[in-house]
């Protein structure tokens, strides 16, 4: 009987044959924590080891500072300092401080992620790294601390779902719309505890940014990880960052043709329209044109789901088609995922154009996904964002959020009300 990707990945990490449903101990390739959760990990590790503990391998531990970067309060500043000092004491050099950007993206850009790697992080969207075939998963501080002892942790070998996507997106429609459609179709627990493998021409021809978008929202369907083995340009890019071993991993970890899936679904994107997750749940999905005209106070483009250069380019093109002007009274915020993306935007000349159009262009950060940093919404306000969650009050008590693609978000910023980007792009 053939094996799925996750079965092969866990077999590699466990060093033995594994069965679906079994609990196994895996070697961890990278154990990471953020400024959020990171200080909790450090304090817990120091407490349970009487400040005498050493992490199992300082080269396999990393910290990323992204949730509140740069820090906005003394408490957060102190938490970040706790991490810096711990890293120094432990000889951990992979500290990506407040100037780097969103953790998973920074790890990826820095060549620290390979297909088949088992990666832990205090971020429920770690699993977007499944976009390059890594088994990355979000965990709490205890899981991180436990992994620092001997570089292992336990996992249940999950069942796998297979999703095949065919067709080409029409102008104004993109991977985010497909994803929103999938979330709406499957629901908040539609991938409950499952791994999901994505296949089909639409996936094979997709960019890294698109794969990240797709895999980032597996969490919103309660999935464990979405997996795509790198091919084509994505493979070349990853080899350039993480080395030649990537190629070998892709060969050995791809699913067998006779692998067993618990569920197989097919989607075709030829006739897909721009989609949106309406307040207050990611799976409350409608076509953008069904809610067109609804008032929006603030638009945010960015996050680990849609903060790459291609995403910002898509938004830029809509702004350009809309005459480089956001609607009066609209607060439009664009946040690149990383410093590297920000530099790409600078080189492409986007930043000046954004600023002239009245867009706020921020440093790379996760901040706009919380109510505790800049961009929080006041009660009664309605936001539209390219982030991954619109739970009630998430970015401000009494506020509501629509989730949509960078194109729909920018079209909405240009018109001041929910707008199908095709109305602007023509």
């Amino acid at each position: 009987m053939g094996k799925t990707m996750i079965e092969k990945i866990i077999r590699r990490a466990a060093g033995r044959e594994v069965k679906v449903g079994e609990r196994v101990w895996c070697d961890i390739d990278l154990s990471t924590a953020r400024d959020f959760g990171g200080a909790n990990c450090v304090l817990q590790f120091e407490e349970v080891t009487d400040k005498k503990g050493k992490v199992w391998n300082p080269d396999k531990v990393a910290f990323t500072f992204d949730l509140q970067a740069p820090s906005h309060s003394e408490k957060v500043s102190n938490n970040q300092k706790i991490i810096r000092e711990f890293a120094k004491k432990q000889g951990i050099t992979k500290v990506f401080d407040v100037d780097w950007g969103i953790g998973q993206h920074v790890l990826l850009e820095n060549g620290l992620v390979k297909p088949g790697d088992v990666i832990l992080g205090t971020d429920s969207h770690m699993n977007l790294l499944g976009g390059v075939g890594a088994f990355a998963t979000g965990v709490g501080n205890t899981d991180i601390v436990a992994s620092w002892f001997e570089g292992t942790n336990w996992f249940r070998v999950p069942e796998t779902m297979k999703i095949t996507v065919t067709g080409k997106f029409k102008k104004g429609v993109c991977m985010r719309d497909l994803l929103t459609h999938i979330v709406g179709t499957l629901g908040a627990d539609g991938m409950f505890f499952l791994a999901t493998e994505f296949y089909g021409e639409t996936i094979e021809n997709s960019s890294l940014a698109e794969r990240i978008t797709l895999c980032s929202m597996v969490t919103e369907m309660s999935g464990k990880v979405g997996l795509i083995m790198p091919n084509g340009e994505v493979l070349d890019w990853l080899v350039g960052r993480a080395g030649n071993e990537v190629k070998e991993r892709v060969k050995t970890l791809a699913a067998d043709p006779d692998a067993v899936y618990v569920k197989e679904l097919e989607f075709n994107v030829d006739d897909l329209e721009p989609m949106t997750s309406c307040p207050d749940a990611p799976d409350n999905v409608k076509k953008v044109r069904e809610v067109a005209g609804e008032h929006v106070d603030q638009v945010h483009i960015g996050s680990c789901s849609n903060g790459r250069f291609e995403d910002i380019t898509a938004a830029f093109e809509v702004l350009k088609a809309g005459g480089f002007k956001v609607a009066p009274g609209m607060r439009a915020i664009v946040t690149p995922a990383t410093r590297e993306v920000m530099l790409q935007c600078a080189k492409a000349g986007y930043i000046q154009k954004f600023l002239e159009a009245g867009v706020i262009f921020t440093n790379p950060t996760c901040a706009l996904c919380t109510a505790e940093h800049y961009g929080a919404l006041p009660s009664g306000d309605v936001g539209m964002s390219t982030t991954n969650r619109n739970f009630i009050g998430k970015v401000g008590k009494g506020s509501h959020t629509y989730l949509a693609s960078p194109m729909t978000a920018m079209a909405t910023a240009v018109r001041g009300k929910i707008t199908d980007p095709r109305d602007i792009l023509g």
Partner: protein
Amino acid sequence: MEKKILRGRAWVFGDDVDTDLIYHNKYLAETDPKKMPQYSFEYYPGKENFAKEVKEGDFIVAGTNFGCGSSREHAVYCLKYAGIPVVLAESFSRIYYRNAINNGYPVLFVNGLSQAIKDGKIKDGDELEVDLEKGEIKDITNGNSFHGDAVADLEMDIMKAGGLIEYLKEKAAGK
């Protein structure tokens, strides 16, 4: 894990209770687990007073996918240190489940709870009796009973040790 039969009041929630509703991102910078209960359910419409009114021994009762969303362990600590002895839900999100087990904090998958909540068969303030060993839940107030799934062996071992750290320490010591 305690073996006795527990008795307490139910606090009833719906499906897909996310971590921002349990413990809002506004308070993520908190690093002391014992200070976390004061923020529990502050953003849950209709349950804003939970932190003030909850009593030690009360139960959380919820539908499917409890704890979906963030990886924050705060959402486990804020209930554990409020003295909630067990969270009963039809199902839990995977990260929340891990975080609970890793802290030796009992969570029970209880069949039929989501529909029972919708049908009003288990309500806020109901007096419950919970047998953790057997996974049996009785609603004393209205006579309904529910049954929880058995916990997998590894998770049970981790729970019995008191959590993942304690489990690993015992393992390292060769116990």
